[in-house]
């Protein structure tokens, strides 16, 4: 199709879709109303399970089955990446030479690394109490390791990051989530039912029943997944070189 024809199609299709959207948006409920049927129910349900962070309660208790799907999507993406970014027959692995790092960059990254890592772990651990949780904390923790790549060099990063171990950790975290769900089925009433553990005292680290466990599983899964994903892409750019067209 010519460029012109394609632009025409996009214009026609886009205009139709835009018109539909505008018309739909005009029918949306007005902003700032006090009618929140789902919100009210979710807050109530979170409080009965003594989970201070209602969003964590929605993610890991009320709609934990969705979260299973979401974490599995990430898990599938990691396996997909491992398969698609494998070293193929016509590629070979080079040894990247260390690059000189400016001293302030080195100092700053080595200083920030432990702080960032600790922040990530904190965000995961307090998922059921305050904003954040496994998804967010996992990303922070995983990226903090990569400060080594900025501050030192690629080999230093590789030393603290045995990819195989993280791949296994990713899989174990995913199984842990499913196994916690199965415990709900065996010990409680339904798959992923939060009725197995005591709910604890409101607003303490151990409150919320299985919420902290599922949250931790997701935190571990996300941290490992981000490490593996970044490792695969870094490998592709830093280490793997294409063959000379042989």
């Amino acid at each position, binding site marked *: 199709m010519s460029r012109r024809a394609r632009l025409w*199609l996009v214009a*026609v*299709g886009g205009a139709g879709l835009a018109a*539909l959207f505008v*018309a739909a948006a005009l029918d949306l409920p007005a902003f700032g109303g006090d009618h929140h049927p789902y919100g009210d129910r979710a807050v109530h349900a979170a409080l009965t399970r003594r989970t201070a962070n209602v969003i964590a309660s929605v993610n890991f208790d*009320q709609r934990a*089955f969705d979260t299973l799907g979401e974490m599995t999507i990430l898990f599938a993406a990691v396996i997909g990446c491992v*398969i698609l970014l494998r070293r193929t027959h016509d590629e070979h692995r080079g040894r990247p030479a260390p690059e000189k790092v400016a001293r302030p960059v080195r100092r700053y990254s080595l200083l920030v690394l432990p702080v960032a890592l600790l922040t990530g772990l904190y965000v995961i651990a307090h998922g059921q109490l305050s904003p954040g949780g496994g998804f967010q904390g996992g990303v922070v923790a995983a990226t903090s390791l990569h400060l080594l790549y900025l501050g030192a060099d690629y080999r230093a990063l590789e030393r603290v990051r045995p990819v195989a171990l993280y791949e296994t950790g990713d899989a174990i975290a995913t199984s842990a989530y499913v196994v916690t769900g199965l415990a709900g089925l065996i010990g409680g009433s339904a798959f992923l039912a*939060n009725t197995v553990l005591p709910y604890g005292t409101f607003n303490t680290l151990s409150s919320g029943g299985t919420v902290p466990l599922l949250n931790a599983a997701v935190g571990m899964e996300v941290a490992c997944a981000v490490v593996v994903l970044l490792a695969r892409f870094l490998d592709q750019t830093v280490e793997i070189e294409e063959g000379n067209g042989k």
Partner: protein
Amino acid sequence: MDASLPLLVAVPLLGAALLVAGGRLVPRPVAETVGCAVSAGTAALALVLLLNSSPPFLEWSGGWTPVQGQSVGIVLIGDGPGLGMAALASLLTLASLAYSWHYFDEPPSGHAGSFPALLLLFQGGMCGFAIAGDLFNAFVWFELMSVVAYALTGHRVEEARAVQGALTFAVVTSLGAYALLMGIGLLYARTGELGMHAIGRGLDAHGCPDALVLAAFVLVMTALLVKSAAVPFHFWLPDAHAVAPTPVCMLLSGVMVELGTFGVWRVYGTVFSGPGGVPAPEFERALVTLGALTAVIGAVMCWYQRHIKRLLAYSTVAHTGLFLIGIGVLKPEADDGIALYVLGHAGVKAALFACTGILLDRYGSVDEHALHGRARELKGVAVLFVLGALGLAGLPPFGTALGKSVTEEAVGGPLTVLYVAASAVTAAAVLRVAARVFGGLGPRPETGSGYETTGSGERPETRHRLSRIPDTMTAVPAVLLAGAVAVGVAPGFAKVVARAVNETGSAGVFTSVHWTPAGVLLGLVSTLLAGVLALLAVARPKAFAAPDRALWLRRLQSGHVGDYVAWVLVGTTVLGALTLPGMLGG
């Protein structure tokens, strides 16, 4: 018993996670055995649940059963159609795992478990989508299916085409997923609910449908029609099927595409069929129009292919069109017919892909012209391939024939002609391939090509070209074809399927489904038509070659992602325009 419904998702996901965790420790046969065992176990569970699904039941994940009619949890639907699709997906996953036993070139080092793990994740996603009763939950499993399917499609990264096919697949389907998410957002804004039945009740309580309902309908349907590859959302499908490994094609064509159609049926029936939703005539107009267009374009394009996998892919497009028409007419008999048709089609189409995979791995080509007469030695495969073609045409007693004849009687009129024609043309194309490749009949076609994908010079998916065909690779298509026949002849099976479908679909209107003389006759007519067309095409290749005036149709399949995206936008607008008229009055 009901509480084990979520296990249909949990078991394959756990199996996949364990395969990845332990995959580097165990040799490949162990990993593959575990994969087969897990998928077989899930299939058995799906069948057991299916047998206990009358009357249909609901399961609330996390034990959040509704209090005063309201719940914060996720509802799963355990009914005949949903569990049937889950069982079909599981059985086909098992079939493709068995087919790919020791099949691939080396997996990435230390990752023996990754291919079976991906197939298990695919199975989990499909099962989750099939039993989802919550729109957002359906979206999550839709995404899981898609992400796994992209990775599986691009499995042979050494080839630029594989990457390109997977990329267009990913872009187009992701667009569909965004549309779905926005549609869910609109419905949630209106009703404050995510469960499908709850949304439907919320819409009805709000009153007459308005622009918001229309937009939500169009957006949600866009996603499902992208998945089911309806014209003009279908462009990803032939590109992906041409490059995906054969076991993956079996799953994509056999059940994933049909799950999109199932989604249309489920979502319309639960969300939009009430007085606050989309009126029946509008839904019928939209689906029958798009379905007819899909059937015609799919059949024509199928006829003009020489790349065998692309040819089969287009036949899937054509059949999707027939499925959509059947669902669109909103008659209980048509729903029953489509359910049987989907079951039969899954067996037949997966078997045909399996046979094509044998050609690819033995001759390194899936080009109808280059393979002329070369596969004469493969007598057994030839028989399977021809049987598959006859099943596609709807020869009694295949399940496809029963399903098609029941649907034909329900839709009636000119649509019946379309059913006969589309199935005859696609089957004729397959028979033509069989006659040339396995029989060496007719003059040798020219191998020179203009604007077309030939399918020669493909790399086999096995490590070396096969000199002897492994038993698993021939046993799987044979079993699949036997299953397709069983759908048609197993006594009482059709009645059970019809009952299961009607229990959820048509609010207690039960219909009886059986072979009728007219149906058998129509099946024989389309088979005869297919045979005659195929023979003519083989005998006079010049007269039946693609005329220049059909070239524009082929040029639409340009491989350019931008074109496909443009078509998705146009399709969404067309869908809106088709649904609009009856909703203006409200």
